[in-house]
């Protein structure tokens, strides 16, 4: 028994000061206060509990959209001796989530210096495609190729390379997500829960601040711009994804091969998406630079910014490629664009991109548990 006590004590000491134990400490304070219940889903979910185990903290952390409202409204925020900063501690826990659930596990370490990881992955990818096209094409410039990318790389080469990396990345994300889902013991999914979670994710409901005025950025004032720029980014990305999917269908099922005309569906979707992916990331980067230093986890800023810049570069290189596809610059532009895309594909499961998947899983769990009976029956007030 004494030995057990000693072990428990040791474990407690080891747990002291970890983001998870700090989150537990702060959430106990929040749960006795509850003023922030109206802002988002985190606090109502908190009130269903009186204990905050690592699994619960993991779930709440990924439910948090880091809007900042609860920090500015907090009577216990620094300089108060309780030092409550929920957006920061939950951001720190999220980083642990990403690292813990990354697959293969050892790759979780790539989150530690994620800005460097993304930069290196992208640089190597670009270098690789430049060298490859120089090798295949003899040089990086050429006579006009009528916008035919496959004159540089064969369709099959591209499909194989990108398909393999994309497939692996999606598999890695799926495995991580499945572990996470089990870890937060989410329960059975009903249609209404799924539809609510989808709605909350697609509308970024919880960047609305509960009152619809938006979230905080540099100070206690609310703004809808983060929500809007995120929409530009997300829907821009989805349009680009749609463009690629339509092009795949054209290629394999309709026998319609690239290059596609400017008026074709893939080009229209890709162009619109590309514009979204310029406006959105540019705005998000601006807001990120203006962001109050008390929000979130400073050590993750390089990861956030690397991802934002990467999306922007994918888009601008893609649009330049479209604009100059009929010129001699096409080969070099194509290599650069493919390099950015490959860099993105490689780091998908090990960078900011993953946040969306964990967020959606947490939203889904939230929608599931909201439909379950709350066994706590507080009636004090």
């Amino acid at each position, binding site marked *: 028994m004494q030995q057990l006590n000693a072990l428990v004590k040791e474990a407690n000491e080891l747990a002291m000061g970890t983001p998870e134990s700090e989150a537990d400490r702060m959430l*106990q*304070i929040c*749960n*006795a*206060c*509850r*003023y*922030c*219940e*109206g*802002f988002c889903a985190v606090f*109502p979910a908190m*009130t269903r509990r*009186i204990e905050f185990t690592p699994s619960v903290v993991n779930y709440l952390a990924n439910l948090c959209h880091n809007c900042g*409202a*609860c920090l*500015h*409204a*907090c*009577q*216990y925020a620094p*300089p*108060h*001796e*309780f030092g409550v900063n929920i957006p920061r501690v939950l951001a720190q826990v999220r980083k642990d989530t990403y690292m813990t659930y990354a697959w293969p596990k050892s790759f979780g370490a790539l989150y530690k210096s994620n800005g460097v990881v993304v930069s290196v992955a992208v640089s190597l990818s670009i270098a690789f495609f430049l060298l490859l096209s120089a090798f295949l094409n003899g040089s990086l410039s050429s006579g006009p190729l009528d916008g035919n990318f496959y004159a540089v790389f064969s369709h099959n080469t591209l499909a194989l390379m990108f398909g393999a990396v994309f497939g692996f990345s999606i598999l890695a994300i799926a495995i991580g997500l499945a572990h996470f889902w089990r870890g937060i013991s989410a329960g059975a999914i009903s249609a209404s829960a799924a539809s609510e979670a989808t709605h909350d994710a697609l509308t970024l409901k919880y960047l609305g601040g*509960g*009152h619809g*005025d938006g979230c905080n950025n540099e100070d*206690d*004032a609310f703004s809808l711009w983060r929500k809007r720029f995120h929409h530009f980014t997300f829907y821009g990305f989805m349009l680009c994804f749609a463009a690629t999917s339509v092009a795949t269908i054209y290629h394999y099922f309709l026998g319609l091969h690239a290059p596609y005309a400017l008026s074709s569906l893939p080009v229209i979707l890709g162009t619109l998406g590309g514009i979204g992916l310029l406006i959105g990331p540019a705005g998000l980067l601006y807001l990120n630079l203006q962001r109050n230093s008390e929000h979130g986890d400073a050590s993750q800023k390089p990861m956030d910014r690397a991802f934002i810049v990467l999306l922007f570069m994918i888009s601008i290189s893609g649009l330049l490629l479209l604009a100059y596809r009929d010129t001699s610059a096409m080969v070099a532009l194509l290599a650069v664009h493919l390099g950015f895309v490959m860099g993105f594909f490689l780091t998908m499961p090990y960078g900011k991109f993953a946040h969306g998947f964990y967020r959606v899983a947490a939203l889904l769990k939230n929608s599931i548990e909201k439909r379950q009976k709350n*066994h*706590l*029956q*507080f*009636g*004090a*007030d």
Partner: protein
Amino acid sequence: MIGGGNAALCAALMAREAGASVLLLEAAPKEWRGGNSSHTRNIRAMHDEPQDVMLEAYSEEEYWQDVLKVTSGITDEFLARLVIRASSQCRGWMRHHGVRFQAPLSGTLNLSRTNAFFMGGGKALVNAYYRSAEKLGVDIRYESPVSSVEIQDGKFIAAYIGDERIEAKTCVLAAGGFESNREWLKEAWGTNQYGESPADNFLIRGTRYNKGVLLKQLISLGADSVSDPTQAHMVAVDARAPLYDGGICTRIDAVSFGIVVNKNAQRFSDEGEDFWPKRYAFWGRLVAQQPGQIGYSIIDSKVLGRFMPPVFPGEKADTLEELAIKLGIDPKALQETVKTYNAACRVGTFDHTILDDCHTEGLEPAKTHWALPIDTGPFYGYTVRPGVTFTYLGLKTDETAAVRFNGVSSANLFVAGEMMAGNVLGKGYAAGIGMAIGTAFGRIAGTQAAKAAQTLNQSQGAEHATA
């Protein structure tokens, strides 16, 4: 405007909207601005029918009866009704200045009909008002504690921040009570029958900046006052709460689910007299009157999860004896108290959402509702101390929020918030009424101050014209 909480901000906004140029002097640095308003969460609001976040109806008469009951009649009906009526009309204006309301918080069942909750609580409200004030061009100075005011024949002349003299045509005092002035509290509470200085054991739930400097000065200058310096909003708080700014989360809400004993392990009041929101502000005072100003809230496992989780874990033990030892009280005496209490319990149908029929018989003091025997281990105990939210000693005022000297209203000195809440609250409290008083009188004071400044402008204009 002297002060930086809800009342001062309401006054500043109203005066600015009326065209006055406004300087707001907040004693605290920016990160601690807002005084006790930052710790509030709702406003008690009259409504005759369901309105936005407010359910059903809460009539003027019912509101007034609640005020009458909690104050035992030590109130001013005219001013109380003024506040009540104003509370039904202020939310649109509050929204206009950025305050957002929300559905009642979980665990606040009994307040859902009577109180409108601020989204994010009082600090979010304070932030919204400061943003609006800045936008409207109110000049805001932090770390500017006013040390004295210059009064001549009942008229405000100037305020001093140390050596700096600030003249103004008119002034609103909204600088809070004196609860963070420990010397004054000590003086007011004196020595009790046990030879103790009770105030030494008080914790302050709110700001450390409410020193009552101007309250003291005004009273010494002959301003009429109300209430007495021992009256205050006092809550039983966890003894481990910080000395200042513990706010809401240090409250112990377990009281009506068990018993509360003093350091001799004896009960001293009816724990089940009424719903907790109507009673919690009495328990600080009850504990303050006990020897050592300490109490122990004792519950058993049956009622876990029925009250808001406390911020610090309580002592836990499988037997009452062990619990008493952990709490530092006499185990035999506690066992005896619980035994007597348990034997007196007449358990009917327990329901903590109504005034149920579980009560004691032949016990002194009785527990009139929610009386369940304490018999299911593990047992839990919370040590409580008196936590002062704000003091009620204030300046007497009238429907114009004017400060009065020997029954005569000052032409240009007004008062709002905790500095005059004692006009309505001679004693006792009902949740959300402080914000109702602060909002109503802050707005009146701001309007009247702007009017006074305008009158002065006109008379000065006339002087220039005749000169």
